[in-house]
């Protein structure tokens, strides 16, 4: 569903068409949830944030003036997930919740490598860029706008992150 189709769906849903709302959810649930999860690494918290996003969307759908509703929704997901992460940091570090945030190489090797473990090794910003680019199909320019970074920096960080993932997934060497 491109931005144009999404706008049409939002318009329908604004007119009370719940099927359109359901279709928007089906279309966006995976990229939105992936973005949130890769910030929080906690399924329960991620689902809370996910609920929050779609309830907000229902109550206040994006204005028709917004050209890129996909990016708008992804930005909302990112902001709410980061807020949630900040709140947790104050009360309880994520690393204490049974999901290691930055496992050592030994940990990775001994527990069989997988993509998520490798992604956890990236800096949060790099992981976000990779997720937004690959899982949410966002353009680099959109990611740059969303993260408020120069486009070139986003491009470089993406390439560096993919290189790092490649290194980890190739057994620590490239």
């Amino acid at each position, binding site marked *: 569903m491109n931005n144009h189709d999404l706008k049409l769906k939002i318009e329908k849903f604004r007119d009370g068409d719940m099927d359109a709302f359901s279709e928007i*959810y089906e279309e966006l649930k995976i990229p939105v949830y992936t973005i949130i999860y890769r910030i929080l690494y906690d399924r329960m918290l991620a689902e809370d944030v996910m609920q929050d996003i779609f309830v907000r969307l229902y109550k206040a759908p994006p204005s028709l003036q917004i050209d890129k509703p996909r990016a708008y929704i992804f930005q909302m997901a990112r902001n709410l997930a980061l807020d949630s992460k900040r709140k947790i940091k104050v009360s309880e570090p994520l690393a204490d919740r049974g999901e290691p945030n930055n496992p050592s190489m030994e940990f990775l090797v001994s527990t069989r490598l997988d*993509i998520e473990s490798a992604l956890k090794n990236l800096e949060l910003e790099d992981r976000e860029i990779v997720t937004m680019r690959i899982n949410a199909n966002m353009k680099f320019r959109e990611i740059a706008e969303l993260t408020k970074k120069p486009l070139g920096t986003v491009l470089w960080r993406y390439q560096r992150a*993919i290189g790092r993932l490649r290194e980890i997934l190739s*057994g620590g060497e490239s």
Partner: protein
Amino acid sequence: MKKFRIIGFALLLVMALSSYSFAQRVDSGDGVVGDMAPEVEMRDLFSQWEMNGYPDYVGYVIYDNNLNKHVIGLVEGNQAGKDEILSQFSNPEGISFGSSKYSYNELLEVQNEISKDAQNKEGIYGVGVGWTTENGKVKGFGESGQEFRVVVTLDEAVYDEYASKYQAEYGDMVYLEKGSQAVPVEDSVGRGAEIGTMDAIEDKSNTGFYASIFVAMLALVSAGILINRRRTALVKQAANGEQVTESRPLTRGEVVSAVKESEIKPGDDLYDDILDKIKK
């Protein structure tokens, strides 16, 4: 300066001769037209890319004198891109493919950013996409020595300052080379030389010079292509949990596919929970 001028003239001469020879053989109507088809098709493809922009899977295009072929550097050896290019050639033997870490479009974006950043800065003489020179020899980048980078020519006095800045922001997309005083920004020429004049470009900002060659799509490679990939043992767990053992590192394309496949689905009941919340 003379040295670069000589290299420059030599390159231009070969380009001119190539064009002349190319035109002559195409126009001759003596039965060799068929032989020229790859070059004609290549020229058409270049024109099309120059007009409409390069596909994101193209990193560089050069002419390799050893191979007597044009070499198109594909980002991560993009197979779909290769197929797309080959589909436009009746005789694909006239071209060869290499691999590029970055796309030309990505490098142009970085070049534009640095050019803007450099507008009011002292000591930056040239920003271009292309190759550099080392000890008087033309030198490309990457394993093949053919790849392009954003080459920034700057004064020795500011080298360290910008080296750390650009390294942090752009990593190895950017290559810094030391140069000397150039000319005002407003005299800029060419896409690859938004800062500095042609004199400056020929003298030290070969970045712009080579970028202009890129525009002409006839950069020369005198060295052969040497690919020497290190092979390592690999244990990869695919996103679906299946363990795959291979004898080579993952390609970047495979990493991207694996990340794509690793997307995470929320619980099946979540939508109902959302509807419940909405109703409340």
